[in-house]
């Protein structure tokens, strides 16, 4: 029973982080109408930014959020402005082909990092990296709890932003009907640039929060792009509330998979869940919740 509870808690905590990854992807998906297959690679960049700050300047990874999020916000905006938006203007290129562009961007990011840092495994071993707290007999990872709290705060802030501010409303308007949004005076291209920045900043936060408990290497982006993809599909393609459910589901599935089946199956479990959802619940959780 203790093992079960412990796994449950670990799964939910991790799920909070995954929700952050999925939310970024979902926002981009909603506004651009494409899936961003460089999502994990953007997270990888944020992890290296955090690593450099920690290793060379002794900055605690949690404080590094103040640098990694804005850096990735800018990187995301630049990618949208100079690499993705121009594609829209070429009539011969279908909008869907932007997806191929994101794959290319992901590859370039990975290789640039490999060139600078080589393929070596790195880690940011903080004093609290393996610290655990005991609550009612079950042990809870300290860094994962912090990550969960920060992820929750960021998620709430994002929802507040999307619902209560004009910019947030403009983002939702563009994702629902870009042409009608233009008629309302919204510059859809500018909104796309901002949204890509925002999605990148969110996944950057997840990367920074994960660093103290993860190994870092240039190819780590791939598995996280896959996770983001799974979360987005689980959540029902473009539903922000769905992305939270998707994130937590994947977190739980991975936690239970590695506890009860074996560590090496962690990633496979997610893909099995994914396959089951595709087969039995196409449309994801959105079909159940309608939000």
């Amino acid at each position, binding site marked *: 029973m203790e093992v079960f509870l412990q796994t449950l808690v670990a799964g939910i905590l991790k799920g909070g982080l995954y929700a952050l990854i999925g939310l970024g992807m979902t926002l981009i998906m909603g506004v651009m109408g494409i899936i961003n297959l460089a999502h994990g690679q953007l997270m990888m960049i944020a992890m290296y930014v955090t690593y450099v700050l920690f290793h060379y300047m002794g900055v605690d990874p949690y404080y590094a959020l103040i640098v990694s999020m804005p850096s990735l916000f800018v990187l995301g905006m630049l990618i949208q402005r100079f690499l993705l938006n121009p594609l829209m203007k070429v009539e011969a290129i279908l909008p869907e082909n932007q997806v191929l562009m994101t794959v290319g961007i992901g590859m370039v990011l990975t290789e640039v990092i490999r060139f600078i840092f080589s393929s070596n495994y790195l880690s940011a071993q903080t004093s609290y990296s393996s610290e655990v707290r005991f609550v009612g007999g079950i042990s809870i990872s300290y860094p994962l709890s912090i990550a969960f709290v920060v992820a929750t705060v960021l998620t709430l802030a994002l929802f507040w932003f999307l619902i209560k501010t*004009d910019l947030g*409303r*403009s983002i*939702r*308007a563009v994702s*629902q*009907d870009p*042409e*009608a*949004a*233009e*008629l*309302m*005076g*919204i*510059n*859809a291209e500018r909104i796309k640039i901002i949204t890509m920045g925002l999605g990148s900043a969110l996944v950057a936060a997840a990367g920074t929060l994960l660093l103290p408990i993860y190994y870092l290497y240039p190819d780590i982006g791939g598995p996280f792009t896959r996770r983001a993809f799974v979360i987005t599909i689980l959540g029902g393609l473009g539903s922000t509330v769905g992305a939270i459910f998707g994130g937590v589901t994947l977190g739980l599935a991975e936690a239970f998979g590695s506890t009860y089946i074996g560590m090496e199956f962690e990633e496979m479990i997610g893909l099995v869940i994914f396959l089951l959802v595709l087969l039995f619940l196409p449309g994801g959780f959105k079909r159940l919740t309608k939000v």
Partner: protein
Amino acid sequence: MLKVEHIEVYYGDLQVLWDVSFEVRQGEIVVLLGANGAGKSTTLKTISSLLSPGPGTITLQGRRLDAVPPDKVIEYGVAHVPEGRRLFSEMTVEENLIVGALKGEAKAKREETMKWVYSLFPRLHERKKQPAGTLSGGEQQMAAIGRGLMSLPKLIMFDEPSLGLAPILVSEIFGIVKTIHEQGVTVLLVEQNVKHTLAMCDRAYILENGRVTMTGTGEEFLNNPQVREAYLGV
């Protein structure tokens, strides 16, 4: 107020408007009539800068409107209530109205304008927290008109507001168009519904296969045997 001169509009290689010219004067209700596929929506989209007028020009109170990007047209005082409502269906009625007033004076007067819109459409007030996609057809049209009014336009363009509505709602919508006009907004109305519109308009243009073929006052049209036969079936 609005002058459309010699516009030629294409979708890719396909030309759909040929040398279309017309004008709307301050304080008028002008109707653009035409069958399905005549090019009415294309004309409105060109005024809203979503399409290029080719060699033609579009001016509003002497200021060039073509070459202005689509998201800036609203700042010139032109609102476009598009065909098929095009509401933000997952946003609430209230949010749709807010998105209609994002800039400048419209933003500053948002609360006030919203009260005015709710007074025109009490039913929208009852449903303000409801997602726009869950409204009935007539209510959606009201929300789309309300959203257009939120920008405090000098000129408002309606693209077939009666489309797909029950006859009783059609009268209600045209009543609203008249009310809006009486409150000082100039109106350009695109319609297939000849009977209602000719009676309420100052002037009308007929668009056939992408060309303006006839123009006159509402009264002239109603007394014209050709129009009566072709459009009123009498």
